């Protein structure tokens, strides 16, 4: 009896270990990615927002395009412009392949970021590949929740200006709208360009 219970205990532990290895290993089918592989762990691209021309957009609007989704706001002092600049360099490295890549800038400050403000901001970086999206508070909160993005308004200063702290991650979706990779501040431009090219060339089915 005691032996049997011990045997069962061991079996249980082995099962747990196995689940662990499967969970970590399932993402490394072929060559490892330089960015963080999130395939299968995040929901597909889906939202109801307004683009910087005031037109309604959904996740399906980007079908056939690889999207680099970034959450930010136009009053952002340093992180957002820096990230956008880095993404511009990624596009340069991609060369002609950049034609099927879109940079989607979703505001976490819909109160101040009107479509016009977003248009001026985002198109200044790249009029061809970058697009700004805004929406109602709940629509923005919904998509942030969907991708586990934290953001919150900080205290207003004397002039009523405020910062919004937010995640600096870039979410990379393939042309079918499946979440594939996460790029962070520490990932080099080369690494991002390399992996984005792989996603463009081999979207998941």
């Amino acid at each position: 009896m005691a032996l049997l219970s011990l045997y069962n205990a061991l079996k249980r532990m082995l099962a747990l270990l196995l689940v662990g290895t499967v969970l970590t290993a399932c993402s490394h089918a072929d060559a490892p990615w330089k960015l963080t592989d999130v395939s299968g762990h995040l929901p597909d691209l889906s939202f109801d927002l307004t683009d910087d021309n005031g037109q309604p957009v959904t996740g399906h609007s980007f079908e056939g395009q690889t999207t680099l989704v970034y959450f930010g706001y136009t009053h952002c002092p340093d992180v957002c412009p820096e990230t956008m600049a880095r993404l511009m360099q990624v596009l340069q490295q991609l060369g002609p392949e950049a034609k099927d890549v879109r940079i989607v800038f979703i505001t976490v400050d819909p109160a101040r970021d009107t479509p016009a403000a977003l248009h001026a901001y985002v198109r200044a970086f790249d009029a061809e590949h970058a697009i700004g999206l805004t929406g109602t508070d709940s629509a923005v909160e919904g998509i942030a929740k969907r991708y586990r993005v934290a953001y919150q308004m900080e205290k207003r200063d004397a002039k009523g200006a405020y910062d919004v702290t937010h995640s600096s991650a870039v979410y990379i979706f393939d042309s079918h709208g499946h979440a594939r990779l996460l790029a962070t501040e520490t990932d080099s431009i080369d690494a991002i360009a390399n992996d984005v090219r792989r996603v463009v060339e081999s979207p998941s089915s």
Partner: protein
Amino acid sequence: MSSLFYWLEPWEPSPTVVIAVLLAAVLFARGARKARVSIARHVSFWFGLTALYVALHTRLDYFFEHEFFMHRLQHLVLHHLGPFFIALSYPGAALRAGIPFSWRQRWLKPALEKPSARMALRVLFNPIVAVTLFVGLIYFWLLSPIHFKAMLDWRLYRAMNWSMVIDGLMFWWLVLDSRPAPPARLAPGLRILVVIAAIPPQIMLGAYIFFTPHELYPIYSICGRAFTWISPMRDQQIGGLLLWIPGSMMSVIGALIAIRHWLRLSTRERLVSQRMKGVDAKPERVAVSVG
């Protein structure tokens, strides 16, 4: 009042949580009228159940998802505090009495008497399995790559939280049982051993997280932190401390309660063993005391 409703709004609504908590509440409320339940046990049960609900289904979940030490706090409630108080109220009889008699006859009894169900319960409540599961689940979900995916993938996140609740209920039910064995699954002395065995691994992991000089769980920096005024390292250290001190403290309290039950039962235990001397010792009892 409106701010209370703001905080009670679930961050990620889950029908499973609502149904499970409501079911437990209705069964206990119904059954407590038939089975005699003291006020202290009432308080203990409702406190534990409320704690579980608050930790699973309120706006606090935003902070649990986006701050490591808040996540540890959530698991302290889900794995230790909530199940501890529910088990302490010893609600089995009341919950059972809460099920309509005909349902008990038709579904519950046959289900529990199935050989597979008995086997599963015997395995799950084996002392080695119980300690391994209790500690193993904490370690498993805190492995860096696993934790990363659990905080990103909502399905894994829910599986993680539910596994903590279910395991917590099983473990504390086993440890805080006040009856002699049998009918309790573990002998009173073994219950003390089981809960004490779970202390060192929690202290070790908590200390390891506290003393690690680099970020073990980068997911919080990637997705953004809820408390931007706390540095990532400080967040990690508080999280480690929460596992190290309150986590193991709960086990110490559990051990003290188990010791009290053991002392209280010691006279009766002697009677049981004296009674057993005349008859052949039951094989099940031998297995329990060896295992």
